[in-house]
């Protein structure tokens, strides 16, 4: 990618490169901080007060808040955007997210089926082994 820019573009870019990417401003840090506090306080309050009647709903809401907070951190603290470092940070992030999703979903899926398909005799707890 860098090749296409040629010499002049490089020297123009040089100033932006020395610091890597933009560091945000007081306002963006405070926005991120306030949003993070809200997105942390709500799931904590929810779980500490006992949560909804349906445990599944409570879990889904808590995970949704976590996802939102990760996004807030990425944007306001890590200053992610599609154009920093000519898109390479975004590209590596997308790649990592795909690998992480495959790894997590695959592990949980495979191991769940391994557990449910296990022969009854293999239930160590019932046999009193290792407890």
């Amino acid at each position, binding site marked *: 990618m860098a090749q296409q820019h040629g010499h002049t573009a490089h020297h123009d870019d040089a100033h932006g490169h020395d610091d890597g990417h933009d560091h945000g401003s007081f306002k963006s840090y405070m926005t991120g901080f306030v949003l993070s506090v809200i997105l942390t306080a709500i799931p904590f309050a929810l*779980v500490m007060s006992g949560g909804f009647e349906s445990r599944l709903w409570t879990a889904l809401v*808590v995970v949704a808040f976590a996802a939102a907070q990760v996004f807030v951190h990425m944007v306001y603290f890590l200053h992610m955007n599609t154009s920093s470092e000519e898109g390479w940070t975004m590209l590596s992030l997308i790649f990592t997210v795909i690998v992480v999703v495959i790894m997590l979903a695959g592990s949980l899926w495979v191991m769940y089926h391994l557990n449910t398909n296990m022969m009854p005799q293999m239930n160590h707890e019932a046999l009193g082994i290792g407890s």
Partner: protein
Amino acid sequence: MSQVHTTAPGDFWETEPHHHEDGASTSVGFWIYLMSDCLMFAVLFACFGVLGGSYAAGPGPQDLFDLNLIALNTAFLLISSITFGFAMLRMMLNDQRGTLIWLFITLLFGLAFLAVEIYEFHHLIHVGAGPQRSAFLSSFFALVGTHGLHVAFGSIWLVTLMVQVSQRGLIPANRRRLMCLSMFWHFLDVIWIGVFTFVYLLGMI
């Protein structure tokens, strides 16, 4: 490659090496390191996801965890993230003293986080819920312990940089190092979101 070139190579290829400033690609390289670190944490999360329900007839999350303590820890780490942000803002204004003060405050909150976590681990091991008790506790200590180790090494790095900045000032090399550490520090906070959500909050529901 055996073809005879009819024109000078310079017409086709840029034979002059590109001039890059020192460390021009540091931030993208460091970002890729963080992504690889992220993969390592993903493995530990997957491990916890698989083993998190295997209590071996021992204590579960509801018997062991104290959400007040976790909320306190979360607050410490979040505040340390914003104070590091303030340190970076002072750095951009070439304010060496301000940078050092905010870095020191960040360090205090980082150490407070570690102190609470060590207290928690000590308490768990004391009540007989150490890593050898069950698969759940093994994967818990592996995941949360690895995050704690990252914060500990981040704190050591922070002290090193405070010494460097106070001795050499805010030279370009130190600015670059501070930028890497700030990415590392914010990244640890992102991982902590995963930890308190999947380990503590979901365990306590």
